[in-house]
């Protein structure tokens, strides 16, 4: 089962490598990982999308918690949450027809065209992984995808619940 873990940890040299090392050392899966400092620069926040059965998940959470640098970890997928990912994608828009198609699909998915070249449009889209997948698939059916980059997902719990020190 796919899970999204949010980790709050000390923003110190080596703390990210300890997380990454732990996942590879114990053969845990990483689908995506994002990291950045929080509003308090002494802290970093990591979002990891991973998968595994309940036992594996329990071990992942415990093992991450055991790292000295880690302050808190929570499984966002346990309750209702917001999940977002950013996609930047370059597609071929050679002629009037394909330009219109690209524009139309982008509008439907509520994305935006952020750069235009002679033959290439760059589109930005945010959403959850499913939406991004669907967008890429639809776009690929209409025109050629030149390049794409995804940020990996970030997430936050809905409502009162907060991950903080």
């Amino acid at each position, binding site marked *: 089962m796919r899970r999204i873990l949010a980790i709050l*940890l000390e923003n110190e040299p*080596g703390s990210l490598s*300890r997380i990454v090392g732990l996942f590879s050392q114990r053969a845990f899966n990483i689908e995506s990982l994002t990291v950045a400092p929080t509003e308090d620069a002494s802290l970093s926040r990591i979002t990891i999308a991973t998968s595994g059965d309940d*036992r594996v998940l329990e*071990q992942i959470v*415990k093992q991450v918690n*055991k790292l*000295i640098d880690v*302050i808190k970890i929570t499984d966002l997928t346990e309750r209702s949450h917001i999940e977002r990912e950013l996609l930047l994608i370059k597609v071929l828009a050679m002629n009037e027809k394909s330009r219109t198609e690209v524009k139309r699909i982008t509008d439907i998915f509520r994305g935006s065209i952020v750069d235009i070249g002679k033959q290439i449009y760059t589109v930005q889209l945010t959403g959850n992984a499913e939406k991004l997948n669907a967008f890429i698939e639809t776009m690929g059916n209409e025109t050629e995808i030149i390049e794409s980059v995804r940020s990996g997902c970030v997430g936050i719990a809905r409502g009162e619940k907060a991950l903080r020190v």
Partner: protein
Amino acid sequence: MNFLGTIKGKHMTTNSFTGAEMVVKALAAMKIKYIFGYPGGTVLDIYDAIFQQSEFEHILVRHEQAATHMADGYSRATGEVGVVLATSGPGATNCITGIATAYMDSIPMVVLSGQVPTNLIGDDAFQETDIVGCSRPVVKHSFNCRSVEDIPNTISKAFYIAKSGRPGPVVVELPKDILMPHNKGEFHIETDVQLRSYNPTEKGHPKQIRKAVKAISSAKKLVVYSGGGIVLADAAELLTELVETLNAPCTNTLMGLGGLSGTHKNFIGMLGMHGSVEANKAMANADVILALGARFDDRVTNNVKKFCPNATIIHVDIDPTSISKTINAHIPVVGLIDIVLQQLLDELIETDYQIDQKANDSWWQQINQWRAVNSVGYTQGEGKIKPQRVIEAMYKITNGEAYVCSDVGQHQMFAAQYYPFAKPRQWINSGGLGTMGFGLPAAMGVKLAFPDSHVICITGDGSIQMNIQELSTCSQYNLPVVIISLNNRSLGMVRQWQDMIYGGRHASSYMESLPDFVKLAESYGHVGMQINHLEELDDKLTEAFNIKNRLVFVDVLVDELEHVYPMQIRLGAIDDMWVRKGEKA
């Protein structure tokens, strides 16, 4: 040691120190007595500062791996943090095996490693390795120290992390430029460390304690399964009290031996791969298993799918990751084992616990039947000396009071089986990593701490050669340990597996061209002795233990065909065992 001097008063007027001086001052503030190490370019400033003080002593080994094992042995015997100093690059990488050994057995250790100057880091400078990166999977934590002022508190944090919670090794990397004389700073040290990201649980959750006692109280076939956590937490007395209160059978893991005395009437032997039949049978048939500071290691459980299907498992451990990792715990309790044991004892009184006499009697009757098989047994006969016989002699001569430090192999299992340890910390071995070469340096560390006790290194012809160079360190610091090598002219444990599993094909399990160990010992200035006949075994061993002020290397030629029994059958349940060749339990 004659090279020790003092710097009394030298810097007392000012609070400005070099990084190297800060390292030494911080170590002194941690009240260490010994540091084990080997010099090299990046740590020469630290060596210079150590040379000019008298608060603690530096022990110069002959290989950095031995420094880590020596610090480790010292720690296992005393409970204090073992401290190591190594230079960058090869010095640091030589420590990795010792760090991993300490990590697997949760031994508190601080390893100070030199590093190339900060401005050269990343350039593949001479003797640069990323030791923090290399050691990452086998440390509890590590620090890159990057400024002079950071040194004292980094060291004090390292000690705190190493010894608190589930103990383990911590690496501190010190680049040369922050140690050198041109770079000075103010010395401030916080010995009462607080970390917002690290607060190990101490007390067991009261609800879990109540649940545990309820399960214990309704058990008809209870087994106490205790591990190295009891030893590390100095909780042997509480364990004994609990076992006696419950009149429960108690088995110890390889790491937990001595947690309950090996001669206690409730002790049913070690469990696991080479455990006693009664211990493994009791586990397999238990209705409640109380696991205390043990981790259901694969060398205990055998096939996890067949593990004790009818038991309710109560698992007490300081480390939540140990709980339900390999075997699902029905009642997990996270906490320091000594505190939780006290909580359990209190709750038993609170709930007016009474032994269910009928159930207890019939459980013991059953266990005594299993015991009658005498699975940990051997026949000496007229011929070659049996290795087990040597351990028994060793036990008698030392009154069961020696520190026994083991290497890895058959000799290790024989020692675990035939030397009933009365106290925790008496049995010192590399259980988790199984590091050949651990025994001698570990014994040296123990001897340093307890010079008046018998300290034995039980070893084999293979293992002893993995750190044999330390015989030289023993001469330098006069460490008269007694080395007893069960010389079977082979990598016995490997050969046993080849006999049992690989159709008797002895691929590379022979030690051809063994040295003359007697002469070898003598060349280092020690006493060497060989024992070849059964008739001379007891007398010569006694003689060896009577030589008080010199290291004695006893090379005992034992029966090379002996196998360690009992032995679990691969992929079977915990109690599927060979008791003797071709005979199942």
